[in-house]
């Protein structure tokens, strides 16, 4: 059992598809989870169908969706760090690392979950993962938390191999689907969930396994 899990991801809804089941599973067994979300996803392109959000109202709407998603998963400690969406790779690295470092210092997590730098498609994902591993790599080896990464770029397995952790989260699909649906402005997008009604079996096949790569520090 983990002592404390710190999740560091850049956008509201990044927690839904890849890790919501894993987090619900750990919370169910009593492990506290802190979710640090770097931005409010204010540059997102999905505005709802028909559009009920605007560029101006999107951050506030996505903040409420993020809070609802955390309630669905069972996360009680949500930290919104206030960085600007799309700009993580250009942000002052010292400031970014100091924010992540302060959370690690405060929480002393046994496990940190983030994106695999270089294999996570969106520049914010890669920059977020890079900041996490950079910050943890600075700690003496004995003080480093384990880091589990999400990866989904094209051909990522050619570079990083098969995931070494596969969690069966079928018992927590209710939490996971509720987390996805909490992001009401986002989840209608066809490539995410679409408007299709899934059978239980299809849901289990599509969403029932979550995969992670343990980051190997040099």
């Amino acid at each position: 059992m983990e002592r404390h899990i710190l999740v560091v991801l850049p956008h509201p809804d990044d927690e839904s598809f890849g890790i919501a089941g894993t987090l619900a599973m750990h919370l169910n067994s009593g492990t506290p989870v802190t979710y640090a979300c770097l931005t409010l996803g204010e540059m997102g392109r999905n505005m709802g169908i028909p559009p009920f959000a605007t560029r101006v109202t999107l951050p506030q709407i996505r903040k409420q969706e993020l809070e609802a998603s955390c309630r669905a998963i069972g996360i009680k400690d949500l930290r919104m760090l206030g960085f600007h969406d799309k700009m993580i790779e250009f942000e002052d690295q010292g400031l970014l690392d100091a924010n992540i470092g302060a959370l690690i210092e405060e929480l002393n997590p046994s496990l940190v979950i983030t994106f695999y730098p270089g294999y996570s498609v969106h520049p914010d994902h890669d920059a977020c993962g890079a900041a996490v591993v950079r910050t943890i790599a600075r700690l003496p080896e004995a003080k480093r938390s384990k880091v589990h990464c999400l990866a989904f770029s094209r051909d990522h397995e050619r570079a990083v191999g098969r995931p070494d952790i596969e969690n069966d989260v079928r018992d927590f699909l209710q939490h996971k689907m509720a987390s996805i649906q909490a992001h009401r402005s986002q989840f209608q997008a066809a490539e995410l969930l679409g408007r299709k009604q899934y059978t239980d079996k299809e849901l289990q096949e599509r969403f029932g396994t979550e995969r992670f790569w343990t980051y190997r520090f040099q």
Partner: protein
Amino acid sequence: MQHIHPEDIQSRIDRLKDQDLYIHLEMTTGAYAAHLDSSKHPAATFITNAVIRYSHGSISGNGPYRIGLKAEAGWIYSEGLTHYEESESERLILAGHDSQGKLIVALQLSKEPF
């Protein structure tokens, strides 16, 4: 947001001319464009809270719409606009959404920073 009514937009453009305004201007294919379809070229650009001033401006086209604003030393142009926020009385909030409802272009003007 509502579908654009050109007459309403034109009167809003006229009300905002000849004064310093903060602009948010953006166009984006989305960060996932090439991940979802390798033939796509991902591109995006935005500028937020730059200060501009225009002497006249207008909306044209039959939808999606184009807007051109004549500034002191140049132009501001945006094409592909489909929606606006009718409830905004002081600011002009315009966007273009593609067939999937995703934002592809945005033009916003305000007396206060966004």
